[in-house]
């Protein structure tokens, strides 16, 4: 403060050898020193940079938030659809369709084959010793892997006609006729007894 005050006083005459003093500087308030301007500039720059970073972070956060909301909304929709699907395919309803429309019966033990050779049985007319053989669902011939369910009466009323009377002894061990069937060439047998029905008519 002292230096600023002395800038308004005249130069001392008692020092003749002294060079002529430089013109008096302008007041400090009108000409700020360069260091202060730099500080202000730096502050403004830092503030601007900080604000831009802050704005960018804020925008990013908003985007993330929006995405999270969309995800939550989608998750809610997925849950709703899953629940609707679960209700539409609820097991009591499937049972009702089965009982009233499809009338599927449980698989007969005779439809489960122990060895591949038994598949040949299905190429023949129903053999006598085994009684009425279960027929495939929609076509004649060897059953597909998914055709283990045969059409018939509702399961509770008559689950398997062939299971019949409780006194019937179940066959024990492999049926010898199955081995014969497996060893016999199938083509002549089929030719001798062509199956009837639309599938047979379509075959040349």
């Amino acid at each position, binding site marked *: 403060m002292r230096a600023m005050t002395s800038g308004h006083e005249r130069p001392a005459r008692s020092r003749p050898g002294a060079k002529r003093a430089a013109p008096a500087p302008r007041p400090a308030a009108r000409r700020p020193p360069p260091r202060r301007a730099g500080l202000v500039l730096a502050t403004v720059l830092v503030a601007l940079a900080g604000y831009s970073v802050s704005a960018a972070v804020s925008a990013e956060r908003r985007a993330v938030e929006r995405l999270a909301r969309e995800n939550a909304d989608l998750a809610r929709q997925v849950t709703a659809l899953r629940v609707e699907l679960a209700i539409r395919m609820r097991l*009591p309803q499937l049972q009702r369709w089965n009982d009233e429309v499809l009338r599927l019966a449980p698989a007969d033990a005779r439809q489960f084959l122990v060895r591949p050779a038994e598949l040949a049985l299905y190429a023949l007319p129903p053999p006598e010793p085994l009684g009425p053989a279960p027929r495939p669902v929609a076509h004649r011939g060897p059953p597909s892997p998914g055709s283990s369910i045969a059409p018939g009466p509702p399961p*509770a009323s008559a689950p398997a006609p062939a299971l019949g009377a409780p006194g019937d002894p179940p066959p*024990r061990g492999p049926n010898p006729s199955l081995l014969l069937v497996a060893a016999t060439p199938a083509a002549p047998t089929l030719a001798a007894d062509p199956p009837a029905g639309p599938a047979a008519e379509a075959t040349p």
Partner: protein
Amino acid sequence: MTIAVALAPELRTSGRRLAGHRQEALAQARQRLAVVVLVLVGLVGVLALRLLALALLEPAASRRVSASPPGRAEIVDRNGLVLATTYQAYALAVRPGDLVGDREELARRIHAILPHRSLPAIRAALHHQGPFRFVARRILPEEAEALRRLGEPGLVIEREPERLYTHGALAAHVLGFTDIDGHGAAGIERAFDARLRDPARRHEPLVLALDARVQQVLEAELEHQRQRQRALAAAGVVLDARTSEVLALASLPAFNPNAPGPAATQPDRMNRITLGVHELGSILKPLTVAMALEAGTLTSLSQTFPTTPIHLGRHRIRDLKPRARPLTVPEVLILSSNVGSARMAEGLGASRQRAFLSRLGLLAPVPVELPERGRPLFPREADWGLPAVMTIGFGHGLAVTPLHAAAAYAALVNGGLYRPPTLLKRDSPAPAQRVFSAETSRIVRAMLRVAVTEGTGRRADAPGYRVGGKTGTAEKPKPGGGYDHRRNVTSFAGAFPMDDPRYVVVVTLDEPQGDPATGGGRTAGVTVAPAFRNVVLRVAPVLGIPPDLGREADLAPIAGLYEPRAP
């Protein structure tokens, strides 16, 4: 402060030109400025602190606006099929103070949209004196939209979590239901209420041991048989013989847990598998045989027992179809001889019988997770004399639940290891207690198999699955004492496949009236055994047990000790 310092030189330079009062005013202004700056800085500080508090101190769940977990964990079966879930339902509420317009007209319009809600109830809600009241809960989205379009500011459409049982009445007695506030009120919902509502575990479903497919088969077949036999009720349970996990548990008539209503708590809809106790009759006879074998009081399977009636005071123990000759041990079981079983129990004695029954869990409530558990009825220790020993020997005088019997049968056929039944899926079997030796189990398995092929359970035989089991017909007690000969509880307890038992099935019918198509008989062999057979026929392929007509259980232990049935 920076501003105050910057102003200072100018004030100082012009100080001589200023009058004294202006200097004072300026000083005062500086002080005010400083105060204002301090206040601003304080405000900024408060905001910063609040931001920090929001960011660091608030619980994480409240910040998660998007992925908030459901209010209650799902319940799924052992294959992940959802049995119970929670969804955001709509509810209509009213703030009577905010209503504008005619309330009568509004009530009529609401009733037109919600016809299932009675007009007086709606009217009562609209004229409610308090600030808030629900008009209807669990309304459909379309109804909610229609109500919103009424434009009445006093009506509030609320979103609230609701429990949904996707398969309706399936496994209703296992799942139970929740009350209006979302707390478990029965079944698993009640037993695991804290677990299902725990915020830390709500996102992971509760996995039951149930298999919904098996459950559906059991319920459907029991219902068919109940209608055919015109029975009061039917119940059944399917148990894993190795782990004692409950794969299916059905009690009919059931209820819809989505709208349980007061009917769900009526006695006729109670859980007859875990809560209802009754005498199971002859299905306890195999346990008597196994106990006598294990205790060593049966020295040989060829030991014979006379079938002459036993007189115990006023009571007489006799066979339903007495044979004129003594019966071997297998024949006692195959022909279901009351006298033979009573004699075996007599040889066993009260203390050993009691000890075996206790180790099989038959003298305590069944240790399953459900809160609905029945207490077995049996004589006091002081009254457990010879009459009690003999009657319990053939399945009377001891009332237990069917789940008790299923767990005991599991121990009987799985090699002699008892495990308490559980409704939760287990990764590894629970610790077991040995009750019978493996050899005893093997012998009884053979007897149970022959009891089906040659004895009273022939209608339970599912071809290819080597079914073994025992029928049981018990008369219901009269209210004034004694037994009512016209009212039966028929049961069948069995397992399959008997060469390596995997599953135990117990089915019962309450008061079957007989099916004229099958002769009108009311014994277990006619009324309930066919249901067992149908359940096995449908369930076994689902559970991965292929039928094999070429295999048979190991009947060597009792070979030659029974007379095959005449063809």
